[in-house]
């Protein structure tokens, strides 16, 4: 049977997220527990988490989380890493042995800084260099896979139910101001850890529930700009789209949302002139980045989260609040697990981005 990446595998899912607007840090236990009432939305073939603010002692370094199929692959890949990065710390990813999670690959974690001499030689800024190097490893080093590459954030994922994946990765030992979670229901059984979600690049991470019908249009558009969709998953292509729009084109989150979940032309025509002009412009310039078909995503970035549904709202997603906390989940039950007395529970409209940032002045 073909592995993920050689074939496109649609999947259904559960997602959840929580963020403290005060920047207060919480352990990953809460978000892992939030996935329990949504157990039936996953089928044990993938679960994962992203935490922001979890590596304060290494906040100036890129945290590379990597899977290797064997020790030799890791040794070879480390030679490559050392040619590109200064490695300030490298260690085995701390995990718990539990019966629910088996057949794990070699999981390793590196804190790195790009070598200035290589940066200058390639005439790239730091983020572009890291993004390209990550994609180079993922496409050119068989058996090695970078699944997290941001600063002061990290992605943790595995084949298994999400609540078990949380235990496996010892999320109760990490503290972050923002967490996202994903449980996967793929319609095929490749059982590859890299295929689990979240998908992340630099500080961006995506958890996604849905199956986008625009996939190949989006993929073929974004691949023109140096991205390589090696997994053939929606989550991967959405992450690259957001990276392209936000980092490379300098769009705001709201503008990026109006590209991927563009308002209908009829809606655009009813807007005030200035807004209409901008929306018309963005939709005309980036037609290949419109995402159709069902999706609910939580997009994680440094200092915040954005929740977004497809423009027809073909996937469930609710948002709730309690004090400085904001919760997002596929089902209200997940929010109630995290905050039984959560308030203002509402279902954002299709295509309406919900953007939550930690308060101004809070350093994250």
């Amino acid at each position, binding site marked *: 049977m073909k592995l993920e990446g050689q074939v496109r595998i649609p999947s259904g899912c559960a997602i959840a997220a929580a963020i403290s607007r005060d920047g207060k840090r919480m352990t990953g236990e809460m978000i892992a527990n939030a996935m329990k009432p949504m157990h039936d939305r996953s089928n044990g073939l993938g679960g994962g988490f992203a935490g922001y603010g979890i590596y304060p002692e290494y906040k100036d370094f890129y945290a590379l989380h990597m899977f290797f199929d064997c020790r030799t692959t890791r040794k070879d890949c480390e030679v490559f890493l050392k040619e590109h990065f200064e490695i300030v710390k490298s260690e085995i990813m701390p995990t718990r042995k539990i019966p629910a999670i088996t057949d794990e690959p070699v999981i390793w974690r590196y804190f790195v800084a790009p070598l200035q001499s290589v940066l200058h030689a390639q005439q790239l800024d730091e983020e572009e260099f890291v993004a390209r190097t990550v994609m180079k490893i993922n496409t050119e080093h068989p058996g090695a896979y970078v699944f997290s590459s941001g600063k002061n954030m990290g992605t943790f994922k595995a084949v298994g139910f999400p609540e078990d994946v949380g235990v496996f990765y010892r999320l109760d030992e990490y503290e972050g101001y923002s967490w996202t979670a994903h449980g996967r229901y793929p319609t095929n059984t490749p059982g590859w850890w890299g295929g689990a979600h979240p998908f992340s690049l630099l500080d961006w991470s995506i958890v996604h529930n849905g199956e986008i019908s625009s996939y190949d249009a989006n993929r073929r*558009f974004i691949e023109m700009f140096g991205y390589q969709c090696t997994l053939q998953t929606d989550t991967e292509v959405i992450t690259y789209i957001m990276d392209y729009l936000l980092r490379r084109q300098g769009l705001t989150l709201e503008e990026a949302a109006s590209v991927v979940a563009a308002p209908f032309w009829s809606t655009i025509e009813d807007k005030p002139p200035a807004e209409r002009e901008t929306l018309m412009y963005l939709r*005309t310039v980036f037609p290949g980045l419109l995402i159709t078909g069902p999706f609910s995503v939580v997009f994680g970035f440094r200092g915040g989260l954005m929740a977004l549904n497809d423009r027809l709202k073909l996937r469930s997603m609710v948002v709730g609040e309690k004090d400085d906390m904001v919760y997002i989940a596929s089902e209200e039950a997940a929010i109630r697990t995290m905050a039984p007395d959560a308030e203002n529970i509402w279902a954002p409209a299709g295509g309406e981005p919900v953007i939550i940032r930690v308060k101004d002045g809070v350093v994250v």
Partner: protein
Amino acid sequence: MSVDFIYPEFEVVRNDSRCIACRVCERQCANEVHSFDPKQGSILSDERKCVNCQRCVSLCPTRALKIVKSNCTLRENANWKDDTIKEVYKQAASGGVLLSSMGNPKEFPVYWDKILINASQVTNPSIDPLREPMETRVFLGKKPDRITRDQNGNIRCKLPPQLELSMPVMFSAMSYGSISYNAHASLARAATELGICYNTGEGGLHEDFYAYGPNTIVQVASGRFGVHKDYLDAGAAIEIKMGQGAKPGIGGHLPGAKIIGDVSRTRMVPEGSDAISPAPHHDIYSIEDLRQLVYSLKEATQYQKPIIVKVAAVHNIAAIASGVARSGADIIAIDGFRGGTGAAPTRIRDNVGIPIELALAAVDQRLRDEGIRNNVSLVAGGSIRCASDVVKAIALGADACYIATAALLALGCHLCRTCQSGKCNWGIATQRPELVKRLNPDMGAQRLVNLLTAWKHEIKELLGGMGINSIEALKGNRLMLRGIGLNEKELEILGISHAGE
């Protein structure tokens, strides 16, 4: 000479028990097949002149007529086909080049018919276009590489000129001269009502049709007929015709007999003289020359209009398109080898060029590989026959499609493939006033609107089935296509998987 005798291709079968000798067939046939015999009081047929245009069959009030293929054939031979032998006889008698009309009728693979479309099941929902919005609007033209902002941080919303279409289909180039005034009127009115564009072809723009300018593409071809400042300013876009799918590598020839009256004035060619379009543009012998013409036309129209460069699908089309995409063109129109024509040498029409499906797939991929796909929009033509062909073309990577034969069929064409005779009984490919008036432009426009309205519904149904609610999410979405009965190489070029994969 008896050796030249070719038994007529068709037989006119008249049911005498139904025929009332009303002589409608006689009046309707510009080829003069039917004649009244006063002595017998009956109608006679000279089937040698019959082109099987079905005009008499359609108008016979008693359904007394049918046209059938003659069964008087030469001895069967898999190598020396009937047509091949008869063409030898014709050339041995005349010493001339054989002429044909409309698209290549030979049995080459039609890849559209070997591609199947996807639909949603279980893992994502299909969308009902009767209940949910379903968008088909497209903008053709160059898209900027980078977003720029003013000093207040607002996005600068200045776009290069775009052609806005309500659906991704346009009527492709057919000149006034090759088709009639009423055919042009029908196309112009329909395009306006539909919110799409029609194309003047190389015959200039009749003064009556300047009113339809916002829905008109004005063509500049190698003969430069009818090209002047007002003409360029009149259109929504300007098309440089470098080639035509039906006859790549050669020009055109409208006989002097058709250059009369308005046709002569519109083309700016003296009455009675032949209008000969040279094979190449004599100011374009290479790609850098094309760039100069593109920019000359942009200068002439203050950079307000997108420039289309139309090329025939030939062997190295991907490299050619890449060059055109870097020449300043905003849109590339690719015309496949099954595209139609008012007249072309038979050998050229039937043997030169490649199928649009392969050309389109190769060009779209090449432009993406080079990162310049957003520099240009791609329009695919020759031949797009129905809504599913449009959907497949868009999924392969086209921004829009050109149709012409389908539009003529809507106007009454019965595809008899004898446009070159100028005796079109349906009033389309003719300049004879008594024939032209048979095509009522009010009805013609309505039928074209009907056709594309029907296609639009079908496109929406197909999109909805795929779970897509806007046409741009289909563009280049090759995962929505599967090949059936295609070999590895064909699949590789088309960039699609085989059914079952």
